[in-house]
């Protein structure tokens, strides 16, 4: 239940009056008002009763002692030192990391400009996460150098292993292309005669093939063949079923192949270690801070 109450300043004065904390002049003025105003007297009485109740709040008994043992002090000192050390490590690692990144940025003209191929591979990983399989062309366009180097070295056996790995990472293109692989040997003879017929169902998006052709024309003739086999129908390529299958297997591995590249340049490793140190230091400092309390 709420009672009618005076404005805050009057409430404060009544409360202070109750505790003899008003200046003599203020107290005298209030006393005169109290003599005339019954509502003010009632408010003062309610405050007095509230204070009375609060003053009789039962004391609580301790169930334990709080004296400190030398062990408590030692533990606290150790925790305090450990906290300071962790903070120092964290701060130092953060500063070094920032300096490294800043230097790389300033000297290299930007994070991407001076970065080796592995930077691109990281970007691809992120892009793959963000875009999933919806935009395979975007992946391919960002990956010019890595596939060229790797593709030259790898034989078809590697490709087939990679194809399995890629299937895990890029579900959509792999699924579509696997479908194509299944269909290709049987459809080719029929389509040979049909030349320029309707596009095959489940063909991959055109931009992917185009971008592949643009970015790695000198390393393989495959993209061109792939263009014909996917865009214009298999019949235009003039390839046998076996050849088409083999080419398609290679094609199927291409978009996601760079995602398997693990960047292990010394600078990258140092950055990762510094980042780990900064995070670990901060976590340890937070833990020891709790101990210090």
């Amino acid at each position, binding site marked *: 239940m709420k009672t009618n109450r005076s404005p805050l300043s009057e409430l404060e004065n009544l409360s202070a009056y109750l505790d003899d904390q008003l200046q003599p002049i203020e107290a005298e003025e209030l006393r005169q008002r109290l003599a005339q105003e019954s509502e003010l007297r009632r408010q003062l009485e309610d405050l007095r009763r509230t204070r009375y109740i609060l003053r009789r709040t*039962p004391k609580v008994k301790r169930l334990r002692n709080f004296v400190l043992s030398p062990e408590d002090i030692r533990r606290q000192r150790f925790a305090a030192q450990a906290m300071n050390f962790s903070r120092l490590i964290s701060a130092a690692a953060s500063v070094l990391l920032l300096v490294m990144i800043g230097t790389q940025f300033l000297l290299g003209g930007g994070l991407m400009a001076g970065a080796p191929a592995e930077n691109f591979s990281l970007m691809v990983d992120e892009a793959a996460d963000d875009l999933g399989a919806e935009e395979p062309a975007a992946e391919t366009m960002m990956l010019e150098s890595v596939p060229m180097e790797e593709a030259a070295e790898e034989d078809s056996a590697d490709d087939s292993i990679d194809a399995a790995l890629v299937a895990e990472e890029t579900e959509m293109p792999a699924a579509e292309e696997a479908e194509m692989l299944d269909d290709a040997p049987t459809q080719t003879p029929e389509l040979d005669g049909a030349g320029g017929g309707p596009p095959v169902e489940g063909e991959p998006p055109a931009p992917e093939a185009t971008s592949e052709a643009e970015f790695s024309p000198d390393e393989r003739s495959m993209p061109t063949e792939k263009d014909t086999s996917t865009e214009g129908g298999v019949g235009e390529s003039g390839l046998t079923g076996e050849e088409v299958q083999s080419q398609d297997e290679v094609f199927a591995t291409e978009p996601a192949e760079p995602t398997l590249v693990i960047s292990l340049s010394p600078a990258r490793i140092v950055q990762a270690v510094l980042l780990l140190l900064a995070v670990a230091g901060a976590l340890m400092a937070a833990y020891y801070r709790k101990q210090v309390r």
Partner: protein
Amino acid sequence: MQIMQDSFDETKMVEFALEGDLDAFNRLVLAYQDLAYNVAFRVVGERTLAEDAVQDGFLAAYRKLKTFRGGSFKAWLLRIVTNACLDELRRQKRRPMVPLQPYDDYDEEIESPEWLEDPGESPEENLVRSELSAAIQNCLDDLENDFRVVVVLVDIQGMDYAEAAAVVESPLGTIKSRLARARARLQDCLHGFGELLPDTFRFEGESIP
């Protein structure tokens, strides 16, 4: 040891403690632990949290002893303990609340917890004390931390405005204002308990001394 033979002299104990004498500091702990625990209990509203806050407070006080610049050691110590209480409350926001009334091994509510028991009281008196304590705590819990600390220091622990101002490091005017508003809020809340309060504590009851 010479400290233990001397009568309790707060200033001397502080001096010895500043020199690293843990026994001297523990004499101060023994002198103030009841007050610290009662303040902490009313501020945080729960026994184990209060124990943690007091323990943390004494540890922090020992660690920061060099920052004590004279004046009231009691106020300085209570400032550290109330800060530890506020830290506990902030942490508590991230954790579920533990009920004020404890439960026994059979999940039955213990009506008269042992930390409120007074061996000299009859069971009826003990029940009244327990109910009053719970009602007041319930109302205190609804106050903002700043208001609760001031009303606990002044009305429950009986400090004057100046002492409370030293504890919370605020001007007298702030204490006056917070106390008035806290009392008004508590008055409304305690009204709500009506007949649950003992006769002498009811607002409609006989006039108080």
